[in-house]
Every structure is written in C-alpha cells, then in structure tokens.
C-alpha cells in the first residue's frame, strides 16, 4: 500500500468518524432532553431574564437559588 492509499483510507475513516461525532451530538442533545437529564431550550431564557434581580436559570450556588425562592 503506497502513501496515497493510506491517505485515502485515513481520509475516509476520519470523515466517517466525524460524521458519527456530529450525529452522536445531535442524538445526545435530543435524548438527554427526552430523558429529562437536561432541558437545553431553557438556556435561551438566560438572554431574556438578564436583570441582576432576575433569578438565574441555573444558579452557580445552590444557596443563592433557595434564598431567592424563599424571598
């Protein structure tokens, strides 16, 4: 097998791998939403509720979140 053939197989393999990664990512996005692990669409609200007084969509500190809920 000469270098050209090795390059061609490597190119094909790499492309196939990237296609799998791409579709795997799409599957991951939808399946984790279906399983209820993570709701990606809620992050769109970060832009809409962006006042300092707004409750974070997902708070860094759990304490902050409960404190705000109590208020």
């Amino acid at each position, binding site marked *: 097998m000469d270098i050209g053939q090795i390059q061609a197989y490597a190119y094909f393999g790499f492309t196939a791998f*990237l296609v799998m990664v*791409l579709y795997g*990512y*799409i599957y991951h*996005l*939808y399946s984790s*939403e279906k399983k209820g692990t993570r709701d*990606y*669409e*809620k*992050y*769109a*609200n*970060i*832009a*809409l509720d*962006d*006042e*300092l*007084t*707004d409750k*974070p*969509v*997902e*708070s*860094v*500190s759990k304490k*902050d979140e409960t404190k705000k809920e109590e208020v």
Partner: protein
Amino acid sequence: MENRPLEYDYTVAKWFMIATIVLGVVGMLVGVILAWQLAFPGVNLMLGEGLAEYTNFSRLRPLHTDAVTYGFTVSGIMATWYYVGQRVLKVSMAESPFLMFIGKLQFILYIVVVAAVVVSLLLGFTQSKEYAEFEWPIDIGVVVVWVLWGVSIFGLSGIRREKSLYISIWYYIAAFLAVAMLYLFNNMSVPTYFVAGVGSVMHSVSMYSGTNDALVQWWFGHNAVAFVFTTPIVAMIYYFLPKESGQAVYSYKLSLLSFWGLMFVYLWAGGHHLVYSTVPDWMQTMGSVFSVVLILPSWGSAINMLLTMKGEWNQVASNPLIKFMVLASTFYMFSTLEGPIQAIKSVNALAHFTDWIVGHVHDGVLGWVAFMIFAALFHMAPRVFKREIYSKSLMNTQFWIQTLGVVLYFTSMWIAGITQGMMWRAHDEFGNLAYSFIDTVTVLHPYYTIRAVGGTLYLIGVFMFAYNMFMTMTAAKRVEESQMQNTSPMGA
C-alpha cells in the same frame, strides 16, 4: 452611607461604544475616498503633489481595512462584550474593582495601539501581509490588549451567578481563543535591526518563507474573517435579536450544533485563497471542500435567527432595530453562500483577483457585520445612557439609504468582477489574449463609479448613525430602566 441596589456598570461599554462610532466614521470615510480614487485616479492627489505620499491608494488601503476591522468592528465587539457579558453572566463589573481596572486598562491601551497603527501605516511602516500589516512593536501591544480581554472574559465568568454560559459567551470565547492563536502565529517575525543590525528598528521579516508564508498568512487571513467578522457578530445577534424582539432563540440546540460545526469547519477553509497557487493541490481542494461544508453551520445560525422571529414578523415593519438585524441575518446567509461558490475551483478560476471578491467582502461586512453592530449599539444606547433613541425616523432613513448603498456596491462589483474575469481569460484561436489590461479598466469605469456612489450612500448613513447616537447620549428624553424590558424606546 446610601445603600443603593447593585447595578450593571457600563463605563467600559460606553467608552468602547464611542470608539466604535469614531473609528467607524474614520474607516468608512477612508474606504469611500479609496472607491473614488479607483474610479477617478486624480483623487490620489486630493491634497496636492506634496502630500501625495499620504493620500495615495496604497497608503490608505491598509488604513481602511484595518480601521474597519480592528477599529470599528473590534470596538463594537468589546462594547457589546462589556454589556452582554455582565448581563448573561448576571454579574456586575462594579462587583470587582480588579476587573473594572482591567477593562479600563484594556480600553486605554487599545486606543494607544490604534493611534500607533494610524501613524505607522500613514508613514508607510508595514510588514506587507494583508490584514496583518502592523510591525512587530505594535503586535506586542495588540497581544497585551487581547490578553487583557481574556482576563476580562474569564474573570467575569469566574464570578458569575448564572451557571450555564449563554451561547453568545461561547462565541465570544471562541473569538478570543482563535484570534489569539492566529495573530501570534501569523505575526512570528524577526526584527532585523536587533538580530542582524540591519534596517530600521521597526522593520522585520516573517519567520516563514515562500509558500509556507502564504499558507500561514491565509490561514490567518480567512480566519480573521471567521473570528472577527463572524463569531463575535453571531454572539451579538444571539443576544440582541431575542432581547429586542422578546422572543427566545428558536432552537437553543441548533445554536449549540451550529457553534461546534462552525468551530470545526472554519479553521480549514483558508486554503481557498490560494487556489491555483504553489500550495499542494490537496490543500487547495481541502480549502474548497471545507468552504462548501461551511454553508451548513453558517445557515444553521442564520435560519435560527430568522425563525426566532416566527409569528412576530410584524415587528420588522414597526421596529427599525429589528429591521437592521433581520437584514444582517439575511446578508449573513447571502454572503456565506456566495463565499463557498467562489471557493469552488472552477468558479475561482474566473473570480480570483477580480472585483467580485471585493463585492463579496463588502456584502458581508456592510450588510452583516456593520448592520449588526449598528443594531447592537442602538439597543444598548437607551439602557446605557438612560435616554430614548433620539430619532426613530432617522434610524429608518439610515436603514434604507445604507441598504441601497450595499445593493449598489455588490451588484456593481459582481458585474465588474465577472466582466474582468471573462476579459482576462478571453483569447483567440492561437491562444493570444484578446484584451490588454487597460481595456478592462476602460470597461469597468462605470461600475467603479457606481460602487463609489454606493459607498458614499453607506457613509452618509454612518454619519446619520453617529449624529443619532450623539444626540441620544446628550439630548434625548430620559427614560427609566423599567420601561426597557424588550423593545428599545425611541423618539419620533
């Protein structure tokens, strides 16, 4: 002591907004002068023979490209970062005196670098790499400014209240990381005075030579388009369009997918600038293929933006700010389709070195980049200066004048470019060229004039923008923060 509630601090954002306006006026004014010079060469001597050195096309051209790219656009990116960054991370600059100091220092050093760039380019100091003309001492200044921006991004992210990084932040981070890498590697050079005792203190030579130099240059050059003119502008539209329209992004999942798609594909597309050159053939093909694939992630973002307006299209008619953003998004789709077409080898054989390329760049930057920056600044102004936008009708007029300007610009350059390409390659049955270079110049003259008129119309719009913003800062009616949840308040 008065106990005031915590507020976002827009000091640095305001400074960069003013810089955006000033550098936009300067950069585009120089561009219009160049357009008239191309149509009427006598304009090269507009200040007389004695000053021709400073007013000729070759001195002013890098000043135009660098002023609009690294002046107008980068200031716009910084202005929006210091606004959007705080808001989507839900943390105020006022909470960190350190980050406030970094922001102010970044702005001051940025202005110093801009001044050095203007002076050195006018004096003729250049390392002769397109969009990377600055000589090595200025490059060091650029790197310092950029590192300070990184400190700001990661510093502000470090003290955030919002756990997830909104999609715009991803795009800003991508712009920061990619430009850092591109700029450093493309500007690797040897200062000849210090290394060999030869030439001026400012002079340097590239560390790469020949074809390698060209490859690194266009890896940089095309990705300057990607990470200065695309990713941070996408960051802006993902924040400002939902915010102004009150609509959440149509599909957040699509925004994530497009992000990773864009990140992976863009970095490989630069080879299309070197089609039919001495770089290996497979690299040219790869550049073409990746350019075509690039349509997918680019359209993913653009379609996501247009679908965000689903059911709310009435806002396009009533709100000039939405008009700017919808047109920007449309021009983004248009130029990201046009670019890949030009990158196809057979099309490139005709298009390369012609005015069609110039047309492509300008429908991208005038229609997409600048329109988005105008919209972002218009959205920020009432919230930052606590005043309504001075004149809605002036905004509308600006929109239509500039749209006409862009259309005149790119249509004339399409016709000019394709005519030029066809004339260059035309030959008789024995292979003798059918036309000499001056034949093309004569034929293209009317189109160059139309382009100059289009550019002038666009510049008039920029002056309207500057006036509207100045009046908003100083004379418009005051408004309360509570009145600004979505749509920006604007005067008649």
